[in-house]
């Protein structure tokens, strides 16, 4: 097992002026599950392929453990791309399906049997080693496919959107399985997804990329509570954080008819008179005092105990869409007009121009 280091790693495609991955600095600790997440074209898959040796690194370096692998061919990097191939061979037993790649690699019989058994135990497949794949359930077959990667005992697992072709139910199941298996194995894993929910639920840490540039790396909690910039704030969390431009006033920001208190240092950190303010749906409260931002309710989505209020407000002449979490039983209805205020501790402020966070990090 080993750590992974991207050291100012850059990938510039021929004929392109902007790097697909721009000076990526990222350390993945030994045994860590790191998720690379971002919208399409952000450079997450390219980063993974650079680590796999499938993309040239035009500048900088990539290390696995202490070893510089920047110019090492893929098969000599001691990595495994999981789920690259789901195919199971119908005439071969589960044990044969899991172990045949070791045979090709010239691993001796005893060693093969030991590794297959170990992997089967981890995957709860021991009772099935003698069976053929057709006697297995869908989930078991998937575990056999994972077993193929595990028996190779690679230093790092790489997974590129492995769940994208599964239906919703199997996706949630497999998500949990992969995460728990990774923890049992303790193998350093780099996982690529465009789905922020997948990232939040699976990763020890998450690296958010946009336009080839690393935006923030941290635990799911860090990213959720203290997004480093407007992009991360809007990307992480579902429903997304409410973001709009607000005027700075004495002691805080203008929030409808009221003023929401902000850290003193926010005012000091910007010389503009406005900031982008962000509040998560669960940090908005329907006010009973008639103070706050007036919101026209368009729709309330009931989810049992909770619900989400979808509405819109007028902020300095601009229409702003607003989402707030409300009580699932007692909530305003569509067509009504309500006032909402933010929880003061959970207001995020970002520089209007740079988009960078101005508020201090919130610690849970």
């Amino acid at each position, binding site marked *: 097992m080993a750590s992974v280091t991207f050291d100012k790693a850059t990938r510039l495609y021929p004929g392109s002026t902007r790097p697909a991955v721009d000076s990526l600095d990222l350390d993945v600790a030994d045994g860590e599950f790191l998720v690379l997440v971002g919208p399409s074209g952000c450079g997450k898959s390219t980063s993974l392929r650079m680590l796999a040796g*499938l*993309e040239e690194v035009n500048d900088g370096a990539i290390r696995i453990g202490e070893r510089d692998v920047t110019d090492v061919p893929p098969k000599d990097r001691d990595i495994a791309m999981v789920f690259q191939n789901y195919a199971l061979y119908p*005439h071969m037993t589960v044990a044969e399906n899991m172990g045949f790649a070791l045979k090709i690699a010239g691993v001796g019989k005893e060693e093969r049997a030991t590794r297959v058994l170990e992997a089967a135990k981890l995957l709860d497949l021991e009772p099935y080693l003698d069976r053929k794949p057709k*006697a297995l359930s869908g989930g078991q077959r998937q575990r056999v496919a994972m077993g193929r990667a595990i028996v190779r005992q690679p230093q790092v697992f790489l997974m590129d959107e492995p769940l994208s072709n599964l239906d919703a139910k*199997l996706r949630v199941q497999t998500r949990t399985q992969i995460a728990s298996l990774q923890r049992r194995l303790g193998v350093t894993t780099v996982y690529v997804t465009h789905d922020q929910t997948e990232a939040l639920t699976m990763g020890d840490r998450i690296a958010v990329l946009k336009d080839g540039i690393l935006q923030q790396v941290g635990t799911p909690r860090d990213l959720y509570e203290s997004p480093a910039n407007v992009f991360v704030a809007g990307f992480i969390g579902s429903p997304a954080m409410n973001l709009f431009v607000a005027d700075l006033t004495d002691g805080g920001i203008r929030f409808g008819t009221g003023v929401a208190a902000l850290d003193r240092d926010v005012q000091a950190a910007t010389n503009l008179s406005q900031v982008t303010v962000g509040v998560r749906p669960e940090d908005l409260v329907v006010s009973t005092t008639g103070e706050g931002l007036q919101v026209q309710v368009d729709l309330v989505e009931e989810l049992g105990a909770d619900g989400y209020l979808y509405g819109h407000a007028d902020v300095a002449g601009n229409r702003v869409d607003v989402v707030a979490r409300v009580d699932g039983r007692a909530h305003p209805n569509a067509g009504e007009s309500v006032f909402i205020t933010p929880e003061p501790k959970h207001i995020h402020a970002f520089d209007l121009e740079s988009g960078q966070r101005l508020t201090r990090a919130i610690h849970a």
Partner: protein
Amino acid sequence: MPASLNITAAKVEPALLDLPWSAPLDSWPDETIAALPKGISRHLVRFANLSGYVVAIKETNEEMARREYEMLRTLQRLDIPCVEPVAVITNRHTEDGAVLQSALVTRHLKFSMPYRALYSRSMRPDTAVRLVDALAVLMVRLHIVGFFWGDVSLSNTLFRRDAGAFAAYLVDAETGQLYQGGLSNGQRENDLEIARVNIAGELFDLEAGGRLEEGIDPVEVSNGIVEQYRMLWKELTSAETFASNERWRISQRVERLNRLGFDIEELAIKTDEGGTTVRIQPKVVDAGHHSRRLLRLTGLDAGENQARRLLNDHDSFAARRGLEDADEEQVAHQWLSTVFEPVIRSIPRELRGKLEAAEMFHQLLDHRWYLSQDQNRDIPLAEALTSYVDNVLRHRRDEATIIEPPTGAITLPTAAQLEEDEPQPGSWRDKV
């Protein structure tokens, strides 16, 4: 069928509407389904008859179906041998409104077969090697246009007989990606490694099912792809430098590529400042050197090796008649009307569909050679033809669209049939 069914197709194919799209593919009635041997697939793939030809139908999600459809169309435009994309079917629902997966429909190429149909009882060593060689050619062609396959395997390929060799066609482009700027060495190496592991796995599987002739080492055969690929890649792409008085090496390189079945469309030639050395590198190469020549001369459309074989016969025809210096196209016309066409016309009509015409002609030439060896005399073509029809062709299966019991393919991750398997004698430890 709900009116919302959505079909995207390159050509109008009204018969598509007759297929039972409102039922999940695994429950389509037998009269719709064509039984064909197939490879091992991640998704459920079944074959259906569609106005006289066979189509493969794969159930998958909409995004992947569309992506693969577009990818296959692009590959076709790039002149890559691959299955023909027919349609993408989305918005499928059952009669009671339940949502069904989208489907990709591709046309099964006539006379092309999955590797599992290329043996009667067990796969022979020379067949295995030829399959691997054909796959290497396909991989090189894909890599030259910048296509990273990601799942190279015998199962994802169809094979067509090609005068003693095979020609490989890409079937499954699901994992593939096209890179405008070409592939990195790492991507090519990775595809090669995937191919090596998958081919070995497929041969181990044949072995486990008792379908591999004894003495074949799956690992050794699968390693063959690496060697074959590297040889071809080097010939087709590498630069060579030589002294400027060795200019014959330019035409030598061109001839070598022609022999491998490629034409050079563009060759970069550079001399150094003093003009003492020349450096050449093929920039654009095109597969099908012999096929194109045959097509130009005779109008016959044949596989590369078939074309080579026919052209050899054409050349010896010219030599026999002392026509080496005559106009090539006129000679070709004579050969066609006095040799090739009479042979094909003499084959009984009911047997003509068993193989492609060019393949039959090649087999006939082979048959004549063996007869001549046996009897130690020159056998006239007409005599060889009678023997070939009665002793060989009549006993062959019809390969236009092979109908055989399908092999047990395992689909992942959708399939979930649970049935107990007989425990195998001996321990799994003996087998890993």
